[in-house]
């Protein structure tokens, strides 16, 4: 009774003194009121149900987050955006499709009135294919907007009719353009010029092949630098020499009878002399040119529009990125959309893409190319047993041939090494190499590797081969993202025995190579037959 009395008295005094404060009875054990500062224990991050402090701490957190929670509540009232997924078709935008459909309905009918042949075909086929002329293909967005504004009669220029009727349509198209030229030459000419320019630009962007090749260039340079006049002079000299030798041999024969050695010399000179005639030289050069271009055709690919679209659809995908694009039995790496999108222009290449493409190269050239995971093992200095197991599995030897190792340096850069066992050289190819960079640091692991491989076979230390470190020549990248492309194509060309990488891979070609690698990965092979 006493205590109750005291309590009520105490409360009354408090009320009388100042502003209202919470009654003592309201405060339960362990409950925390905001007015009493209490620091939460960092050790008690995980609260148990039995803890007394848990409820208080939770309440405190709730009190602190009151403002934010109220903000959240207000945001809940705003209607949420429901994400809708639109599947991408082969035809570009839906708007463009709609345009074509509208135009086709009218123009096909117009065309049928003029030509009876196409009319029959259209009637036979329930769903006629509609194809756009090349001149229309060349046009980019500009002409789309032009199409919108134009009337029906003018639209006939841009639209085409049927697969079989393409040639007729082309003829009609040309005739119309000629008529237009006669009527109002200035505007039509301007259009034609514009079309041509756009086509040229497209060619430059997509299919720009390196025109000069090292081996071919050596021959052609000689040929160009020697004028035909000089060639004739040389031939005259050769004639003189042969005549002199003939005289000498005849004299010799008269003295000593037949001498086979001199005869063979003459024959050799005759053959050389024969070949130095211009017409035959031309044949020789053309043969060489054909051989080289055959090599080229295996390595390069002329894109068609469908194929480019195929690649572009993969690049522009924005949903379900972890889905597989294709699966091949001989490629263990997963070719998901997100992995293939690392081949898009400003992105850095992925190890998944690189290992998959290396598998394709090995399939076509039978070269020895290691994984991207081998170099980190060397850097880690992991157990020799393990390194040797991997090396023997991949047929890495010191005896003959050469092998290639792709290197990922510091997780930011791609480069590769070629170890040549016949010339005892370790060649380091880097598209960013400068004099400042010490390439010795990256390649010293391979020197140890080759020494250890030889030691393991029981070769005495005197007979162990010593390898030279060399900085190889490649094309140089002029941006911060293309080194993976330089590395992949460098390995490809070196493994198929091509020298002079600087001319084969240039900065201007990388966009083409990115599309090519993606296309080859989707197809599952490097060598694609030329049409």
């Amino acid at each position: 009774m006493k205590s109750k009395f005291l309590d009520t008295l105490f409360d009354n005094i408090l009320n009388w003194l100042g502003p209202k404060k919470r009654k003592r009875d309201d405060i339960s054990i362990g409950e925390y009121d905001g007015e009493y500062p209490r620091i939460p224990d960092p050790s008690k991050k995980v609260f148990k149900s039995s803890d007394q402090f848990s409820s208080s701490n939770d309440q405190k957190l709730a009190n602190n987050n009151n403002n934010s929670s109220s903000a959240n509540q207000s945001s809940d009232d705003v209607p949420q955006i429901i994400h809708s997924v639109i599947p991408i078709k082969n035809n570009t935008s839906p708007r463009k499709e709609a345009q074509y459909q509208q135009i086709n309905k009218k123009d096909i009918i117009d065309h049928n009135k003029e030509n009876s042949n196409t009319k029959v075909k259209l009637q036979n086929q329930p769903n006629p294919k509609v194809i756009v002329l090349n001149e229309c293909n060349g046009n980019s967005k500009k002409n789309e907007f032009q199409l919108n504004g134009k009337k029906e009669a003018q639209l006939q220029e841009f639209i085409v009719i049927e697969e079989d009727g393409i040639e007729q349509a082309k003829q009609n198209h040309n005739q119309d353009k000629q008529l237009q030229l006669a009527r109002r030459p200035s505007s039509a000419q301007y259009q034609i010029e514009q079309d041509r320019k756009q086509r040229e630009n497209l060619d430059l962007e997509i299919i720009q092949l390196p025109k000069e090749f090292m081996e071919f260039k050596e021959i052609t340079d000689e040929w160009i630098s020697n004028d035909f006049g000089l060639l004739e002079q040389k031939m005259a000299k050769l004639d003189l020499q042969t005549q002199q030798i003939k005289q000498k041999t005849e004299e010799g024969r008269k003295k000593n009878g037949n001498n086979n050695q001199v005869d063979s010399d003459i024959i050799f000179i005759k053959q050389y002399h024969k070949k130095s005639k211009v017409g035959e030289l031309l044949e020789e050069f053309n043969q060489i040119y054909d051989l080289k271009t055959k090599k080229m055709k295996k390595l390069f690919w002329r894109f068609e529009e469908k194929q480019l679209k195929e690649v572009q659809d993969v690049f522009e995908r924005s949903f379900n990125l972890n889905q597989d694009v294709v699966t091949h039995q001989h490629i263990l790496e997963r070719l998901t959309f997100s992995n293939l999108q690392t081949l898009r222009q400003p992105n850095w290449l992925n190890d998944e893409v690189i290992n998959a493409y290396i598998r394709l190269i090995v399939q076509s050239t039978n070269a020895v190319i290691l994984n991207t995971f081998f170099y980190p093992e060397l850097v880690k200095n992991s157990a020799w047993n393990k390194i040797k197991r991997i090396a023997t599995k991949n047929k890495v030897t010191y005896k003959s041939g050469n092998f290639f190792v792709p290197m990922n340096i510091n997780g930011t850069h791609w480069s590769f090494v070629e170890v040549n066992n016949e010339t005892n050289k370790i060649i380091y190819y880097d598209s960013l190499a400068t004099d400042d960079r010490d390439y010795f640091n990256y390649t010293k692991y391979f020197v140890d590797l080759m020494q250890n491989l030889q030691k393991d076979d029981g070769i005495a230390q005197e007979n162990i081969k010593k390898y030279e470190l060399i900085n190889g020549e490649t094309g140089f990248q002029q941006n911060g993202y293309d080194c993976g492309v330089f590395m992949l194509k460098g390995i490809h060309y070196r493994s198929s025995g091509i020298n002079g990488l600087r001319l084969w891979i240039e900065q201007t070609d990388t966009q083409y190579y990115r599309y090519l690698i993606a296309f080859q990965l989707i197809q599952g092979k490097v060598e694609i037959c030329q049409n």
Partner: protein
Amino acid sequence: MTDQNANANSEYLNLKVKSQEGEEIFFKIKKTTQFKKLMDAYCQRAQVNAHNVRFLFDGDRILESHTPADLKMESGDEIDVVVEQVGGSF
């Protein structure tokens, strides 16, 4: 003989999964179960995204559909876990 028979007949293997930082986790797995279970278990345990991680056995890639019997594994073998490699320039 008894040991050999026991090894040959035993259905289970003890495999070590080693990350790049040197952390080791041991798994007991049947010879005929696919590696997908092991990978999922590891990714949950180590809290990594399965798409950013590669599993290697002696430098070669392990697929989800592989089994220890396919790769001729023995108990005590190591599986390396490697993070995605990327490169563009310095």
